[in-house]
């Protein structure tokens, strides 16, 4: 409304963007956390935070790709669990080369999971909510088959996905890098690079087109099913990166560890400003949203809120965050639409 007059000026142009509210929220959260946590800016504590936030960030970025294409992935948590089980199933502690096989096999499995989800929602046109709900049970079942109880073994060098110091005996270089660079950050940057490359291609534009309006995209000659399958496969890549991190951190697989991440990743994407209806938003927004949600947890922890209240406050903040960004979008856009539900 007000933005119309001053659309040309720099500040207005930035503040009128819908994602501005989530970036603003991120800044507020960062300031709050920095105030509450005394050593927030120390290298060690930054590294620890990045490690703690990495799985949600990676899964949320993948989730965002799927949401942008008009889908939804309720199986991403189980897929993550399954991949950790696959990795630790293939690896043998005494055989360093088995780590390489494990990575290759897990990568292929990740692609397969994405293809199955994409085939169901894209080609067979099953609603994504229910299709990925069904596949989540298949992933869970296979994961339980590979690893009925949490555990397993990994090769000695796999810790490099959690801490570069794992390789410091091989070369002093890793020890130096490991002092300030967490591998989680590298994985997240790899995730950003992946989306950067995809968004420059035709596929990237098609993902938006299909998510915005599947039927018109189909009418204009886009192979929508193929695009949706690709979106789910890209999502799988992010989940694969998260699985590498997890196995690097714990050295074990767990068929149920990913479950809480599924709904949190959807919430993170929406809080970041990705429209759940598809076609609007950006994968980087999901990164911002995941950071906001993770920082909220930290703030609740450091603000001495009693443990019993933490779930309550966390849920309330999700609603406030999406309501805030929604209100901001409504106020800053001037689109005319019939006012219905």
């Amino acid at each position, binding site marked *: 409304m007000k933005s119309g007059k001053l659309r040309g000026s720099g500040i207005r142009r930035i503040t009128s963007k819908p994602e501005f509210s989530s970036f603003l929220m991120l800044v507020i959260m960062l300031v709050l956390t920095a105030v509450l946590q005394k050593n927030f800016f120390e290298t060690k504590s930054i590294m620890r935070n990045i490690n703690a936030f990495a799985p949600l960030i990676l899964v949320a970025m993948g989730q965002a790709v799927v949401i942008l294409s008009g889908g*939804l992935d309720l199986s991403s948590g189980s897929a993550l669990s399954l991949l950790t089980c696959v990795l630790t199933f293939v690896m043998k502690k005494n055989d360093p080369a088995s780590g390489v096989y494990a990575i290759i096999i897990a990568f292929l499995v990740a692609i397969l999971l994405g293809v199955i989800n994409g085939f*169901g929602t*894209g*080609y*067979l*046109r*099953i*609603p994504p*909510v*229910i*299709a990925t*709900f*069904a*596949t*989540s*049970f*298949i*992933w*869970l*079942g*296979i994961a*339980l*088959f590979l690893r*009925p109880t949490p555990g397993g073994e990994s090769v000695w060098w796999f810790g490099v996905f959690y801490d570069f110091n794992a390789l410091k005996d091989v070369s002093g270089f890793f020890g130096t890098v490991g002092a300030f660079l967490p591998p989680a950050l590298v994985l997240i940057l790899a995730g950003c690079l992946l989306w950067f490359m995809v968004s420059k291609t035709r596929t990237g534009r098609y993902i938006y087109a299909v998510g915005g309006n599947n039927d018109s995209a*189909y009418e204009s000659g886009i*192979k*929508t*099913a193929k695009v949706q399958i690709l979106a789910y496969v890209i999502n799988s890549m992010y989940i694969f990166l998260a699985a590498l991190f997890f196995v690097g951190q714990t050295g074990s697989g767990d068929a149920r560890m990913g479950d809480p991440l599924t*709904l949190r990743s*959807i*919430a993170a994407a*929406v809080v970041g400003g990705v429209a*759940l*209806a598809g076609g609007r938003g950006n994968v980087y927004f999901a990164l911002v949203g995941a950071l906001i949600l993770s920082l909220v947890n930290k703030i609740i922890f450091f603000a001495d809120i*009693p*443990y*019993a*209240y*933490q*779930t*309550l*406050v*966390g*849920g*309330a903040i*999700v*609603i406030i965050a*999406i*309501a805030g960004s*929604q*209100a901001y979008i*409504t106020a800053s856009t001037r689109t005319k639409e*019939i006012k*219905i*539900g």
Partner: protein
Amino acid sequence: MSLQKSFQAASANSFFVKYKKLIIAALLILFLFLLGEVTVSNFLSIGQILLTIKLSSFIALFGLCQMIVIAAGGGGLDLSVGYTATATAVLTASMMDGKNENLWIALLVALGIGLLVGAANGLLTAYVKLPPLVVTMAMSQIIQGGINVYTAGKNITGKPSPVLQIIAARTSGPIPNIMFLLIALTVIVMVFLYKTRLGALLFGVGANPVAAHLSGVDVKKIRSISYVVSGVLASLIGLLLLGNMGLAFKDMGSNYVMPSIAAAVVGGVPLTGGDGNYLGVVLGAIFLQTLTNLLVALGWGDAGKWTGFGIVLFLLLIVYVSNRRKR
């Protein structure tokens, strides 16, 4: 004359089309029972069938919440039903303390919780236009958080009133009492949805919100009401759940949420809204429960159970939901 004939043929055809999903669901249940009888001994028996119906009744009840919210359209879904039920059960267990004369307080509390949760969901989704999936998910978290706060540092005490236990847990002869409730509810819901104005409004709003809006229907209001109804129903189901279990615990309702959505979909409710048949949802719930029973009876363990459940559900969806043009 020929015109009349073709009309008759068309109506007979539309009868089959209209009830196609119900017939398929019923056949699938029959198939599962036969498969169970072949692979596991004593699977197809009256006792087993009645037990399956009893176990599936709660999925079917929560399925009603889902169906109403889904039918109103706008991507409606209610992930908070299981948590609302838990909250009611936990709160009212100590109030009833196993006495019938306290049941009315429990009913009032249940009504209050349901109204509160439903109204919050409805306002946030219909008026603030937030995505139902995320809103009801966050609402679940808030309710679970509330339960955590309420139960922090103490045990959940209390028992359901005997009336609730009789309705939810006992049997009359071989027949579980909750089956009568389910049958009565199915009839009431079918009459309400297909014979009253409000039912027509619900489906109309879901099928074509723009047309409904242009003909003077308050789309937002109807959608909000659907969430309020879902919340109140979920809360009352919480009382029954308490009656069935005999005691309240922290996550007694949360395991029913996704199965209730699956039951609605298997029962032929399109997730886009505007249609739905509660009898189908009940059959969908029975199907899912029969499938679970069969997989448990086969003794493949957790891994086999969940893999089988997922694969059968996925295959079912392929032949069932994807009846639109493939791409």
